[in-house]
């Protein structure tokens, strides 16, 4: 847990230590309750005035954009294909870390990251047996999930490092809930349409499974990665100029 050093606790060493220790205790006590408590226990970053959150004007394009797309696609593709943890039914109800990276790449790399996750998951789907016409439509759900994450943080001035309580609220509302609800509708509808699965199964159990499994991965994997790596990514050319500098 020490690796999850929280920027906001700088200058509040005592408080930070108490927060980390209590979070560590709670995480050990019960994984789900612990992670939940960890988020809720985080203090806010010493506030900046709204004027400080201005566009950095570093929107990427050209060679950087193409490379960003390729890297996002490759990482998503590899995690999609290799990291499958519970492939009970192929393409339906699987838990894999690639889901968390759809949102993460959207938050870091903007539309290039969203496009990259789409390309990566289409290719990964193809080489792992999903027919191309299905993959092209089914994987738009992944694009939407990634794009919603990007758009919400970009236009609502969120910080991808999740350093403030406000960022965490944005992450929960838009990334965990809204993007999965929207992506789930597209994904479940395409499976229902192409494979004639009964609507009363697909739009109840299938949909709930999609949303819940994605939320679990995005909580357990997405939040630590965003908190640890964002500060590094922000200093690279690949980072899509967030409005929060």
């Amino acid at each position, binding site marked *: 847990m020490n690796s999850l050093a929280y920027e906001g606790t700088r200058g509040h060493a005592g408080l930070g230590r108490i927060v980390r220790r209590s979070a560590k205790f709670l995480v050990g006590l019960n*994984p*789900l309750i612990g992670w939940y408590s960890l988020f809720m226990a985080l203090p806010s970053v010493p506030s900046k005035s709204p004027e400080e959150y201005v566009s950095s004007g570093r929107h990427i394009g*050209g*060679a*950087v954009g*193409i*490379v960003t*797309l*390729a*890297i996002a*696609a*490759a*990482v998503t*593709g*590899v*995690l999609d*294909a*290799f*990291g*499958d*943890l*519970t*492939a009970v*039914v*192929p393409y339906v109800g699987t*838990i894999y*870390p690639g889901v968390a*990276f759809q949102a993460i790449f959207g938050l870091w790399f903007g539309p290039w990251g969203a496009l990259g996750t789409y*390309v*990566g998951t289409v*290719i*990964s789907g*193809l*080489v*792992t*047996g*999903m*027919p*191309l*016409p*299905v993959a092209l439509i089914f994987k738009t759900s992944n694009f939407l999930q990634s794009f919603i994450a990007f758009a919400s943080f970009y236009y609502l001035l969120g910080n991808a490092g999740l350093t403030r309580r406000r960022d965490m609220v944005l992450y929960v509302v838009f990334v965990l809930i809204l993007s999965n609800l929207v992506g789930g509708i597209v994904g479940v509808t395409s499976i229902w349409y*192409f*494979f*004639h*699965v*009964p609507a*009363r*199964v697909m739009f109840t159990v299938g949909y709930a499974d999609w949303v819940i499994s994605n939320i*679990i*991965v995005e909580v*357990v*994997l997405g939040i*630590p*990665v965003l908190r*640890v*790596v964002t500060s*590094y990514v922000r200093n*690279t*050319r*690949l980072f899509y100029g967030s409005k929060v500098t």
Partner: protein
Amino acid sequence: MSQLFRSFVFKTRSKSVFSKLNSATNLLFYFLTSFSALITSNLAVGVLLLVSSIAVVFIARVPLNFTRLFVSLAAWFAVVLGIIIALFGENAGHVLYYSALLGLRVKVTDGNLMVALSLFIKILSLGLFTCFYVYISEPKTIVSALRSLKAPYQVSLSIALVFRTLAIFATDYTIITEAQKSRGLDVAKGNLLKRIKKLVNVVIPLVFLSLKRADDLTNALETRGYDPSKKRTEYYSFAFKSLDYLIIGLSLLLLVATILVGYLGV
């Protein structure tokens, strides 16, 4: 799935009649035939497409162990979906079994069974067509197919870079996983939540590596004066031959016939 992925990235292909075709022809043939298989709901057309897919896999000289991977995945998917349709489908027909327990209605009709059978055949033929295409295609042929189809250079360059980096990251992922295992962190052990949490220790190094590689790639592109807005000349030409036109024509004919039989009842 990772086995399929590895075999796509690292395998060597045997020569067949399809390797003589333009790569765009193979892509169009795969797309049109699999789209025909996808949209058909007619059992007879489905069986015909299944037979065609078996023939295509045979002609392309796809090894049996490679085909088995795809067929087992497709069969697994088809069986599970088939059971769901058979038990919970709403297709009309003679009722063979009915029960309603705690609000869960299970009705097995002969209509449901027919749809389940049709779906099983459809998924198998789709799996075989995909198996054929993944086997005959190397990453570079997919890129040259896009160039033949006049896709913008940015698109084909992006896809080329994706395939190039896929192989690198697949190796990186394996190395990191093995390195963490040697330190006592086995991602495959523990309950689901523990396994996801352990993955943090694999994906963070992977992300750092990918960012470093991205920086190298960007520098390489920029030092070579890459400019997406400039018009480019081609070193290779991707001309279509008469056999290519014949294959594309037959695929289109198949698609039209499927639509006519399935939707217009011709």
